[in-house]
């Protein structure tokens, strides 16, 4: 059940209504929300519902065992088991084919045929997201940052439908306390929720889907047919598409949660305005960045050891972050590329090479450099092989007419990047003005938005890019 569909609209109206009606009855609310979220997840493939339920039970058992035990050794043993089980599940469903084919192909170069079975395994939607949420929960319980939650609370947290399949990656410490805070049904931040939902739908349906069909997919499928300007705009177009697609999804998720009285963490903050790669990762998929920081980078030692160890930790974190995105070497290389850039920036900063006056010119240069380094990374991310990466880069030298760069494509690319430079105060003022509209005017504005969304977007509903992760 994709967000921009009539099915989801009907589902959401029912859930939103029940959400506020059942508010005084906490237990019934939780049971209803769990059932609705499982229904939402099961609508993709009901078989994977058992995986979600299994993950819930497994992690809750581990959390309860750790909560009851005072022996640090057994707590560590339970945590190790839970982490191994979570990683095992994700490895099986997401990486089995990748690992097996990589091993077979590697040994084949030495003339050895590995008799490993090749299985057809379907990737359950959202597995990377709910597994990371479950891991954060068991690790936080182990670290005694939180007590084990009641089973029903944890089940609702893991399955809560807005963020279930593509984030943001919400921490249990952020979500579960909200199950107990008294929400005031007389004071709903409707304007905030509506603005996020409509904005997210616009990003996905109009910007991302249009760019994908108009330039990005053709350029990445057969770059040899396009001239340098078309390929360049295709790459910029992908930068805008992936941002609009993913941030659009999380905007809708956060907006839906807002209308139900929940607060989710932000996931994007104008990433293409970043002044450095480090700054980019503070603005892009922020909930994944902080997850990797807190549960991988810092446990590896973070920046507490020698300079070399810090670089190693950065590289390892980003390599695994790359692999999290997909089971292919191009994703690993993309992660390594960002790890290397982060290490290089750190080295420059630590050795005093990154100093200088903070002038407008330097800031513009820093933004342009960062954006283009990120775009180079997106080529690695989007291309299906390194050969295709080479093909795309080589086309950047072949200048000629560019009929695919239409005014509409240019407007979406320039607009998609330019909108990130609009001061946030302006956006806040706009939403605050919207909030002061009378309900009838608000309704008219929303209905008009629906007309524009359906009218301006290409026909059909394309899945969100981050669903595959």
């Amino acid at each position, binding site marked *: 059940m994709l967000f921009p569909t*009539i099915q989801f*609209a009907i589902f*959401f*109206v029912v859930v*939103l*209504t029940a959400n*506020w009606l059942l508010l005084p009855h906490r237990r019934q609310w939780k049971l209803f929300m769990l059932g609705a979220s499982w229904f939402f997840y099961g609508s993709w493939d009901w078989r994977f519902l058992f995986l979600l339920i299994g993950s819930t039970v497994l992690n809750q058992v581990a959390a309860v065992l750790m909560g009851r035990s005072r022996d640090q050794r057994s707590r560590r043993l339970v945590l190790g088991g839970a982490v191994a089980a979570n990683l095992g599940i994700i490895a099986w469903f997401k990486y089995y*084919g990748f690992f097996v*084919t990589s091993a*077979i*192909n590697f040994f084949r170069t030495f003339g050895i045929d590995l008799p490993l079975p*090749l299985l*057809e395994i*379907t*990737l359950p939607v959202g597995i990377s997201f709910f597994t990371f949420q479950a891991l954060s929960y068991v690790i936080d319980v182990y670290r005694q940052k939180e007590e084990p939650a009641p089973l029903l609370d944890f089940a609702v947290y893991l399955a809560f439908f807005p963020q279930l399949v593509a984030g943001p990656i919400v921490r249990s410490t952020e979500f579960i306390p909200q199950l107990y805070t008294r929400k005031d*049904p*007389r*004071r*709903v*931040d*409707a*304007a*905030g929720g509506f603005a996020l939902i409509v904005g997210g739908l616009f990003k996905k349906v109009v910007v991302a889907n249009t760019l994908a069909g108009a330039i990005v997919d*053709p350029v990445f*499928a*057969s770059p*040899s*047919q396009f001239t340098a300007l078309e390929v360049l705009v295709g790459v910029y177009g992908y930068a805008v598409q992936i941002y609009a697609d993913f941030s659009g999804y999380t905007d809708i998720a956060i907006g839906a949660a807002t*209308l139900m*009285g929940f*607060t989710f963490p*932000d996931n994007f*903050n*104008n990433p293409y*305005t970043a002044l450095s790669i480090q700054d980019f990762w503070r603005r892009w998929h922020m909930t994944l960045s902080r997850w990797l920081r807190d549960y991988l980078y810092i446990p590896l030692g973070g920046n507490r050891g020698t300079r070399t160890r810090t670089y190693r930790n950065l590289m390892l974190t980003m390599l695994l972050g790359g692999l999290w995105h997909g089971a292919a070497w191009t994703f690993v290389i993309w992660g390594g590329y960002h790890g290397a850039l982060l290490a290089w920036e750190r080295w420059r900063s630590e050795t005093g090479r990154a100093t200088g006056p903070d002038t*407008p010119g330097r*800031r513009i240069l820093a933004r342009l450099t960062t954006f283009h380094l990120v775009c180079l990374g997106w080529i690695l991310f989007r291309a*299906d092989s390194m050969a295709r990466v080479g093909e795309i880069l080589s086309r950047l030298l072949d200048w000629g007419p560019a009929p695919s760069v239409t005014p509409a494509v240019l407007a979406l690319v320039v607009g998609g990047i330019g909108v*990130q*430079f609009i*001061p*946030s*105060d302006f956006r*806040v003022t706009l*939403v*605050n003005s919207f*909030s002061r509209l009378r*309900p009838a005017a*608000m*309704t*008219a504005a*929303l*209905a008009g938005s*629906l*007309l524009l969304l*359906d*009218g*301006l977007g290409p*026909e*059909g509903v394309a899945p969100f890019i981050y669903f595959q992760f």
Partner: protein
Amino acid sequence: MAVEEAPPRERQAEERATIPAGIVILVVVTSLLIGLFLNAPDILRTAQRQEPGWERTIGVALMEPIAAVSHFLFLDRPRMLIDSILGRERPEPEAVTPPTTAPPATTPATTMPATTLPSDTRREVSAADPLIMYIGGDSMVGQFGPMLDNRASKTGMVESEVVYEFESGLSRPDFIDWPQRLVRVSEDLDPDVFVLYFGGNDAQSIYMPDGSWIEVDTPEWEEEYRRRVDDVMTLLEERGHWVYWMGLPIVSSETFQERVRLMNSIYEEVAEAHPRVTFIEAWSLFEGPDGGYSEYLPDEEGNLVDMRLDDGVHYTTAGAIRLANHTFEIIAEDWEIPLE
């Protein structure tokens, strides 16, 4: 140029007017209902294109009166204006062209007598006078088409146009009427070669011009589907085009495998009766070592790669390249185009 950090949403919300939950629900429901009327023609078309079944029946039954009211009250005009400004072909549901299921003689006038086939000699192709190729069909073209286009263009002697429509095929001309579209392509582009890929969505009940349906897995379905395939081949052949009709690959679902076998046999048998049509077999190209479905197959260098998407039907890029190379070898041999 200073870009400010976004203030936390909590602080933004403090400065914002709030409304009661009941009003929120009312606003959501009302705006969705108005949106339903404003976009009624498009939503009705979406409902109509679904496969026959209870979901389609209910969707169409609900949307038909809404679309009629929307039209009567002029509520659909803003949407029509947007479509017209964007130059989109989104006909009103009432104005959907009647399906072209009649024999080719009833299709728009051809440039030559239907009984006389053009010469069976292929023209000479060169870089100055390249082969014009139209690659069209359902979602199977989505990966395969660009890869064939990419492969062919490397010779410098082929120019291609790739067009595909999700959920389309020969069973549902009420949604997209491919025969009519191919006539338009023949007139406007006049390609030397049509590479056509159908079947991915055709194993469903067939829509007939009188609005009735022929159920899938029946002898009547096979007869009607065979006739439609024959119609398309005849139509293009009589207009002087050469056709490469793509077969479907082995699929993961055993139920679907039986239907795919049937459709492939229809394509192959009908193609044999048309001298300008070549059937390109894809089933065995994607069989595993045991003759069954396999997601992973060796590429040209012998490395095992993922050739099929998780749905067990469509191709990954690697799979599409495999089929595109195979297909282009056949086309290149026919048209005497050097492969490099």
